């Protein structure tokens, strides 16, 4: 029941080359900047657009080979939750969820009963009789996900299901979705938020400008981001530069000692997690091999952490605890000492 996608999809002037395998019971997150082609991959797997070459297959059955074989969407065991919900306005929430079962020929009464169960699982049973227009965005997405799950598909495609929701609604839905009983369904989640990926996905595939640029677990990505997109996604700083004898020099001239012993000299990307950088009032003594003085460019306070941006290297994000920040007693514009251990800096060839 494995979903195998190894295909090229052409949309307008853009070609997307995607290669991803999703095992039953597994959730793979497809992340990438806007316009990278993520939605086109979802549409191809759903059968809403044909692949130009390659193959999409499920459980050994080819769904699309770009030439002769094409299984239409209604004959694929796929459920899709769309970013824009796409609930049918002329039907109640309950009838929306029952739609797929009715389309597959289930008797009306049984379809409605099953639909009620799914609404209940998504926590919106009391909204069964409402029309989509009478529901909030979060409620609509819950109904839409119930609708996608009601036909009990083998492949579930979640196309940015949280993108149009505000933070609190989003967190609640993410939590409920993670808590749903996991049928052996292959799930592909399009996302561009690290929290969504963290909560729901086992693995990540990064799609940028129609190409897969990195894959692995979120921890793999955080450990060694290969693009500024990935660095942003997981909140890591990424510096582009060159490596010479274990010494890193960024393109704008900032030097760091790094612990990259296996990486050959040449162009590299250095990743520094915001929490790996320490800030000090006085020049620190002892072990850290990278110590420099920098002005504070900006401060962003949240309840559990403070994010500080430094002027050197430009825009470097540093994360400290609120207590630690208070002890510094500094304000934007002030200069502080920053330090980071060489072993905390990831280096990958560029």
């Amino acid at each position: 029941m494995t979903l195998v996608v190894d295909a090229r999809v052409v949309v307008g002037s853009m070609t997307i080359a995607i290669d991803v395998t999703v095992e039953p019971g597994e959730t793979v997150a497809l992340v990438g900047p806007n316009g990278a082609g993520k939605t086109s991959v979802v549409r191809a797997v759903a059968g809403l657009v044909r692949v130009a070459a390659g193959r999409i297959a499920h459980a050994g059955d080819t769904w699309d080979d770009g030439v002769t074989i094409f299984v239409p969407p209604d004959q694929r065991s796929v459920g899709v939750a769309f970013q824009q919900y796409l609930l049918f306005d002329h039907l109640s929430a309950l009838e929306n969820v029952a739609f797929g079962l009715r389309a597959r020929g289930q008797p009306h009464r049984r379809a409605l009963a099953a639909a009620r169960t799914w609404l209940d699982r998504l926590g919106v049973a009391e909204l069964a009789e409402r029309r989509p227009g009478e529901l909030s965005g979060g409620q609509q997405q819950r109904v839409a996900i119930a609708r996608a799950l009601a036909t009990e598909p083998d492949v579930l495609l979640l196309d940015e299901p949280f993108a149009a929701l505000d933070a609190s609604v989003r967190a609640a839905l993410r939590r409920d979705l993670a808590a749903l009983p996991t049928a052996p369904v292959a799930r592909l989640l399009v996302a561009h938020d690290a929290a969504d990926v963290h909560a729901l996905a086992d693995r990540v595939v990064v799609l940028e400008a129609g190409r897969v640029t990195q894959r692995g677990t979120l921890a793999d990505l955080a450990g060694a981001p290969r693009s500024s997109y990935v660095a942003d996604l997981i909140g890591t700083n990424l510096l582009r530069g060159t490596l010479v004898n274990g010494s890193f020099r960024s393109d704008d001239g900032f030097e760091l000692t790094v612990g990259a012993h296996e990486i050959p000299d040449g162009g590299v990307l250095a990743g520094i997690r915001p929490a790996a950088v320490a800030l000090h009032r006085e020049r620190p003594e002892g072990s850290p091999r990278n110590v420099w003085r920098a002005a504070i460019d900006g401060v962003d306070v949240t309840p559990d952490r403070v994010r500080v941006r430094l002027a050197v290297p430009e825009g470097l994000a540093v994360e400290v605890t609120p207590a630690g920040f208070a002890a510094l007693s500094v304000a934007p514009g002030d200069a502080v000492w920053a330090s980071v251990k060489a072993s905390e800096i990831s280096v990958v060839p560029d």
Partner: protein
Amino acid sequence: MTPRRAPTVVVTLAGLGSLVFVVPLVALLWRSPWGSLTDVLTSGPVRTALWLSLVTSLAATAIALVLGVPLAWVLARTRLPGRSALRAVCTLSMVLPPVVAGVALFLALGRRGVIGEWLDDWFGITLPFTTPGVVVAQVFVAMPFLVLTVEAAIEQLDERFEDAARTLGGSEWYVFRRVTMPAVRPAVVAGAVLTWARALGEFGATITFAGSFPGTTRTVPIETYLALETDPDRAILLSLVLVVVSFTVLFALRGRWVGAALRGVRA
């Protein structure tokens, strides 16, 4: 929007423009022999014509619905080569002189017509100068109103709703019936009403193709035209009936006619 003062020239011309429509209608109302209204409208020939018009126009509307809605879908949703040309052909009769429509129908479906000859030889079906012929003429002239209204609504309907329905397991036909049609229902209703009103008033194509036989092809507009010579009161009162029907239809559709297409959608 703040109310704005209109330029005098524009207002004057607009006033003259509206008079073009208002004056004839007022004249009709003014000269109507109100006293004999009931007598005339219940007289034999008038009742026959009214009944014939009602039956044929409703039949024409039904046929237009069955054929026109799918036609609208094809024009809106497929990438058919020559789609623009097809649309032009299918809506040509809106601007064609009805008498030309009648001539064309005659050449196609007349007893020696391209298809008519074959219909006659094989099935013994004759359309010209029959009640079904009246319906054919009305469909030819009125169906474009339905096609254009529904096509506009389908075109504005977000295709992704149909995509979503497909992924839920709906066949193309199921999706057409259960998603596309309900979404454009207001436009279908508006289009059908306009089509019916146009069919009811059809004159030129009908008299050319179906003639004017009392009880079989003499519809209200034809009865009106003929009565003008012999019984002007009858002509005036029948005109009045047609005006009232048309005005009611347009007035009732005021909101929908423009809003229909938009209301069917809601992204």
